[in-house]
C-alpha cells in the first residue's frame, strides 16, 4: 500500500521529512491500528519498527509530495519532483542504455527521474542507498512495469503524478495500491 499526499511546496527539506513522518503515522494507524510506533534505524540508516518487525515501510519526500509505502517484506519508495536533471549525476549513476534512453527522449527531465527514482527505490529496498555502484542495476521502461534484469526477485512500480512528480516502488509484493490522501 502506497500513500501519497501533496504538501506545501515551500516547505524546507526538514519540514518535508516531518510531513512524511506524519503521513507514516497516520497511515499505519489506519492500516494496522498502531499508534505512533517507535522507529529505529538500521546499519545504513534504514528505519524500521522494532516492535513490529513484520511491518515493512519506507517513506520519501520531495518538494510538494510525501509518500509512504507498507509491505509485508522489504520495500523501497522514492518520489521526486520532475525538474532539470544533472548530466553529471546521470554519468555517475546510470547505465549506458539508460543514458541513451534519457538523451533520446523528448522529455529528458522526466525520463531522468523515472530512472533515478527506480534506482533510489531499489537502493532503499536493499538498504544500500544510491551511493553504491548503481550502474549494474539497469532498468528497462518499455514494458508494462519497469524491469531490472539484475534484480529478479523484486517488482517495480512507477507512477507519474499530475505530470509533476514521479513515484517509484521496489518490493516483493505484486499487488501494490496507490492511495492519494486528501490535502
Amino acid at each position, binding site marked *: *500500500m502506497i*500513500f501519497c499526499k501533496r504538501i506545501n*511546496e*515551500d*516547505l*524546507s*527539506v*526538514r*519540514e518535508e*521529512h516531518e510531513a512524511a513522518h506524519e503521513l507514516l503515522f497516520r497511515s499505519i494507524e*489506519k*492500516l494496522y491500528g498502531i499508534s505512533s510506533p517507535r522507529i529505529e534505524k538500521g*546499519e*545504513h*540508516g534504514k528505519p524500521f519498527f522494532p516492535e513490529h518487525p513484520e511491518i515493512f515501510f519506507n517513506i520519501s519526500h*520531495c*518538494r510538494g509530495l510525501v509518500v509512504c509505502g507498507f509491505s509485508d517484506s522489504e520495500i523501497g519508495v522514492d518520489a521526486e*519532483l*520532475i*525538474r*532539470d536533471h*544533472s*548530466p*553529471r*549525476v546521470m554519468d*555517475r*549513476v546510470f547505465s549506458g542504455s539508460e543514458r541513451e534512453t534519457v538523451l533520446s*527522449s*523528448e*522529455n*529528458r*527531465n*522526466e*525520463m531522468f527521474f*523515472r530512472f*533515478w527514482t527506480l534506482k*533510489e527505490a531499489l537502493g532503499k529496498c536493499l538498504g*544500500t*542507498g*544510491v*551511493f*553504491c*555502484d548503481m550502474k549494474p542495476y539497469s532498468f528497462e*521502461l518499455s514494458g*508494462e*512495469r*519497469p524491469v531490472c534484469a539484475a534484480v529478479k526477485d523484486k517488482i517495480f512500480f*512507477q*507512477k*507519474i*503524478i*499530475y*505530470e*509533476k512528480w514521479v513515484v517509484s516502488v521496489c518490493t516483493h509484493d505484486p499487488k501494490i*495500491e*496507490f*492511495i*492519494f*490522501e*486528501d490535502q
Partner: protein
Amino acid sequence: MAKKNIVPEETAQAVAEAAPVAETAAPAAEVQEPKPAAKRGRKPAAAKAENAEKTEEKKPAAKRGRKPAAAKAENAENTEKKPAAKRGRKPAAAKAEKAEKTEKKPAAKRGRKPAAAKAETVGTAEKKPAAKRGRKPAAAKAETAAPEAKKTSRKKGTSYEEVVAAAKKKFLAANITRIKYPIAVNVELSGSVSGEFYIYVDADNQTIAVEPYRYDNYDVNFRADTDELLAVIKGKKNIYDALAGGLVKVSGITTKAILIIDAAF
C-alpha cells in the same frame, strides 16, 4: 485500511482532470527549477529567555533568515569568554545562570537566524563572528556538547576547528563549474568530535563557502563520524566506501549530494 481521508487512485484521477495520473507514462515534462532556500525558509525557533539580563543579541539582517537554535546557558561564564572568532564557531552553548555579558552577533549575508536562545538567567555575551551565509551555530548547550567535544578532541588530537578547516580546504578546491543550482549542505559530526558546519555552493557566483554553523534549511544533510569524514577529506578513504560503510550518511536531495560529492572528491 484506507478510509475517510483516503481517496482511491481512480477517484483522485477523476477529480483532477487537469492533473491526471499516468502509470509509467511519459507525459510532457514540466521542468521546475528548485526554489532558493529563501523561498523555502523556515521560521525561526523561539528565543526563550528567562531572567535574561543582556541576552538580546544584535541579529543581522538575514536574507534567508532563520532563527538560530537555542542558546541554553547555565553556568556559562567560562564558555562564553572564549572568543567565537578563534573557534570559528558560535559557541555551543550559552547556558549560563547569572551570566552577565551579551553577545554581538555578526551580520550574516544570508543569515539564518539563530536558533532560540534559551537562557536561564543569562548574562554573558559573546562576540560572534561574521558569517557569510551564516546560520547561527548549532545550539549551544554548553554543559554537554562543547566541553565534551573539546575534551575528546584533545585526546584524539583533533578539534572541531581542525575538522572544519580541513573541510574548508577541501571544498574550496572543489570544481563547482557544473553545478547550476545552489546547494546547502549541513554536516553533523559525531564521534571523537561533535558539532555541525555547513557547505554552501553559490552556483550563480560560482563560489563555495564552508562555515562553522548549522544550516537548518539544507538541501542535503550529512551525518558523519568525524574520524571517518576526516579520512575521506584527507584522501585516505573513498567517500563512496564511507557511505557504503554507514559511517557517513546522507539525507535530503540525493542528486545534489552526488553533485557536491563529485565536485569535491
